[in-house]
């Protein structure tokens, strides 16, 4: 491998201490600071993953409350709990929240936490950018939800079709929060995708060739490619709509020659890869969980990899199946209908491989396994109804009915979210050092499975009965009452399941605090590298970057084969896993610039939204009326962005003065001056150059081997 020289953005001149620069009050933090502030400035991928997880679970309850409001309203005919206008807001916010603020960031939580561990790295390629992605996402999420306080949420559906979402038919600000909020979260995801792709391509442990990559990492990688290339398309659409709403353009106004279908094409060219972005991480989790709890390797690993890539690739060719009824003409409809049928094939391959993995295995029905099995079966149901939609003539009957709502909830909730819950139960001990309760977990699973089938199964029937979607109520004489009641009961059942999950998280944590038990590195007797390190994962991940010689490397260090190809123990787990308490490992330094930079974006967007009175200015026939406070806020946002970028560039990726500077190197006595005693679990971040991904390059530096303390 070629040696690439250090990439610290800037090396400070020898002798300059960053803590005493002109901005001395805002000295750079060091990791020796504990407490909540260290979370604000962390660049550790594990902490960032945990924060994504916490944020998404919070929004799960927000989106869930919105769902329960919908179901309460629709439980009976002619109800007036929610007016039509409010109903539109609730179901729009529910959709956007669940997709962008729950499922995607929850997947990101797992990907951020696990990717470096699974490939044997210490962190991602660009740790500060990783932190920025999280804070930017959070800023966008909060900005989007602040719409409730500014006159109401977005109300055009999550797909926001103009001209309905233009400023004539939607003069409120909710949709501006939609447009700008999604742009902000889009920046977060795009930047994160680039970060993670570079990480997987460029920072794998020695010996980890492509077909030894863990399957979850593969699915996560395909997801990042989809994100990176799909987000710019919706960005274009969002900007065009923003300009129509705020700056007087007419991109989607038919009277001016605009074409509403332009929005639909742009949105769905993003929107279809988006649904694969939603499901692929869950497929990856299932592919990790099923082998562990069947005590068999994943059947057909190469097929699983290729089918994941195929899904990612083919996902770009089917977008107009969301537009069969929009008048695109029979040629286009036929083409997209055929393509949509073909894309079922790789998914079918995956399902068959999961079944083949289970076959002949020694199955343990842990909660993680239950959720994984639930994912496969629920996605299968959703996928089968999806196939019926692929036939365009049939879809003309299904479209805009509850049949579609039932379909996509089976795949997103039954497939996506259940898979993420499987991951939660599986990796919880690794991240937090204690288990989630299996008993409560079984209740969680049971309630959710029952609830989702009640609700979304009923919706298939409602669709066939002819109930339209996006309607705030229905009449008593339409015959929809019974299944709507069933669906609403199911929804509250799912809500109960979610509460059980919350209780589980809380009680497990309390129980652990009262009576800590060491779960050990490998409580499930699992297969991949993250199970080789102590639980919870040490800050530095691996004391020594492992050399990888085969797929499921960790498993093969524990087990060999006898002549009949049965697994035979060749080493005790304690001999194969890493011990705690390595010291002197270089880590990237924390920074507050990612957080500060992220704060600039919502401020800028408030400015853009409110800078003038809505119906004044060019194109309206009225003189423009500016709103001073908004312009001030917007300018503040711009200043914050500019200053943060400048501060970020000026700061080295790893602080040379962070307890272990270059100057100290000559002098062995102070080499480990900054190190805390082993077993604390908390390492002082040591200075030095850019992140070290492989120990091979550090032969000349005594500080990287574990426990080699000269003192």
């Amino acid at each position, binding site marked *: 491998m070629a040696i690439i020289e250090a990439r610290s953005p800037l090396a400070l001149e020898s002798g300059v201490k960053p803590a005493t620069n002109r901005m001395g009050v805002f000295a750079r933090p060091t990791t020796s600071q504990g407490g909540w502030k260290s979370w604000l400035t962390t660049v550790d991928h594990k902490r960032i993953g945990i924060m994504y997880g916490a944020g998404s679970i919070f929004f799960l309850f927000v989106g869930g409350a919105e769902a329960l409001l919908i179901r309460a309203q629709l439980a009976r005919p002619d109800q007036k709990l929610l007016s039509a206008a409010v109903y539109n807001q609730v179901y729009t916010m529910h959709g956007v929240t669940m997709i962008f603020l729950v499922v995607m960031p929850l997947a990101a939580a797992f990907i951020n936490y696990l990717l470096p561990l699974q490939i044997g790295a210490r962190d991602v390629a660009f740790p500060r950018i990783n932190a920025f992605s999280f804070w930017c996402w959070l800023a966008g999420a909060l900005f989007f939800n602040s719409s409730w306080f500014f*006159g109401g949420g977005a109300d055009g559906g999550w797909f926001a079709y103009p001209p309905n979402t233009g400023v004539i038919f939607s003069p409120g600000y909710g949709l501006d929060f939609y447009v700008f909020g999604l742009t902000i979260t889009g920046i977060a995801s795009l930047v994160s995708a680039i970060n993670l792709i570079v990480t997987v391509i460029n920072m794998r442990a020695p010996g980890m060739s492509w077909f030894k990559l863990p399957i979850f990492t593969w699915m996560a990688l395909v997801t990042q490619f989809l994100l990176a290339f799909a987000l710019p398309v919706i960005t274009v659409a969002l900007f065009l709509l923003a300009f129509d709403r705020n700056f007087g353009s007419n991109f989607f106004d*038919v009277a001016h020659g605009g074409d509403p*279908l*332009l929005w639909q094409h742009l949105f769905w060219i993003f929107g279809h890869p988006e649904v694969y972005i939603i499901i692929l991480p869950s497929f990856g989790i299932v592919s990790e969980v099923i082998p562990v709890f069947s005590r068999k390797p994943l059947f057909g690993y190469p097929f699983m990899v290729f089918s994941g890539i195929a899904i990612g690739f083919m996902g770009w060719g089917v977008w107009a199946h969301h*537009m069969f009824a929009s008048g*695109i003409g029979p040629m286009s409809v036929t083409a997209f209908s055929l393509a949509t049928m073909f894309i079922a094939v790789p998914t079918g391959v995956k399902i068959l491989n999961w079944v083949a993995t289970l076959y002949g295995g020694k199955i343990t029905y842990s909660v993680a396994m239950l959720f994984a099995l639930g994912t496969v079966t629920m996605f299968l149901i959703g996928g089968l109804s999806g196939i019926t939609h692929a036939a365009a003539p049939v879809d003309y009957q299904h479209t805009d009915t509850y049949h579609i709502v039932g379909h996509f909830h089976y795949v997103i909730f039954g497939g996506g979210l259940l898979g993420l819950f499987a991951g939660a139960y599986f990796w919880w001990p690794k991240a937090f050092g204690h288990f989630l309760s299996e008993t409560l977990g079984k209740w969680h699973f049971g309630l959710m499975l029952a609830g989702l089938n009640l609700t979304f199964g009923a919706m298939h029937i409602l669709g066939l009965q002819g109930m339209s979607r996006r309607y705030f109520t229905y009449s008593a004489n339409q015959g929809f009452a019974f299944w709507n009641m069933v669906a609403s009961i199911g929804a509250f059942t799912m809500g109960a399941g979610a509460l059980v999950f919350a209780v589980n998280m809380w009680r497990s944590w309390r129980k652990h605090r009262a009576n800590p038990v060491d779960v050990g590195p490998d409580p499930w007797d699992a297969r991949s590298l993250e199970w080789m390190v102590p639980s919870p994962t040490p800050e530095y991940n691996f004391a020594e970057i492992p050399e990888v010689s085969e797929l499921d490397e960790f498993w093969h260090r524990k087990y060999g084969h006898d002549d009949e190809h049965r697994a035979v123990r060749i080493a005790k787990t304690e001999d194969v896993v890493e011990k705690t308490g390595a010291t002197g490992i270089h880590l990237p330094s924390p920074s507050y610039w990612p957080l500060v930079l992220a704060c600039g974006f919502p401020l800028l967007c408030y400015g853009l939204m409110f800078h003038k009175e809505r119906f004044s200015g060019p194109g309206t026939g*009225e003189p423009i009326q500016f709103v001073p406070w908004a312009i001030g806020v917007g300018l503040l946002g711009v200043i914050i962005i500019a200053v943060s970028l400048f501060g970020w560039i000026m700061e080295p990726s790893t602080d040379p003065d962070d307890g272990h500077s270059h100057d100290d190197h000559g002098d062995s006595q102070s080499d480990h001056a900054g190190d805390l005693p082993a077993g604390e679990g908390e390492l002082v971040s040591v200075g030095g150059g850019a992140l070290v991904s492989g120990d091979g390059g550090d032969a000349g530096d005594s500080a990287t081997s574990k426990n080699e303390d000269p003192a």
Partner: protein
Amino acid sequence: MTDVLERNDQIAEADHDAHDDHHPSNATYWKVGLFLAVVTALEIVAYEMIEGPLATAALLIMMVVKFIVVVGMFMHLRFDNKLLRNLFLIGIFLASTCYLGAFAAMGHFEDSGTNVIRDVPADQPMPPQPTAPAPIIKESKGH
């Protein structure tokens, strides 16, 4: 693709050295710049002097040539690891196919080129189209 990736890992070291050897000289860069200027001038000539589909074809070809030359030579992609080219190509491929597909689906390549759904044969007059409602200007000023 994976075998390309595997090979990339193996030849990375060799590639790094190759990169240094293949650095074009300043003189080469001047020539490339001159070439680009000449092609641009030719494009303008084509614009002024040629009509119809021939002009379109000529302009597109020259545009693609300039694109490849700038990307290959100025951005050094010709001499770099193939992985970088592949990553960039993914973007180009997806952009071309998806946007061309959208154009086709929008009827952009058909004769009539309108975006109105016709439900009468082309030789008969269109029925009156609905006009957009008057904008609501003075009503909802509050936030």
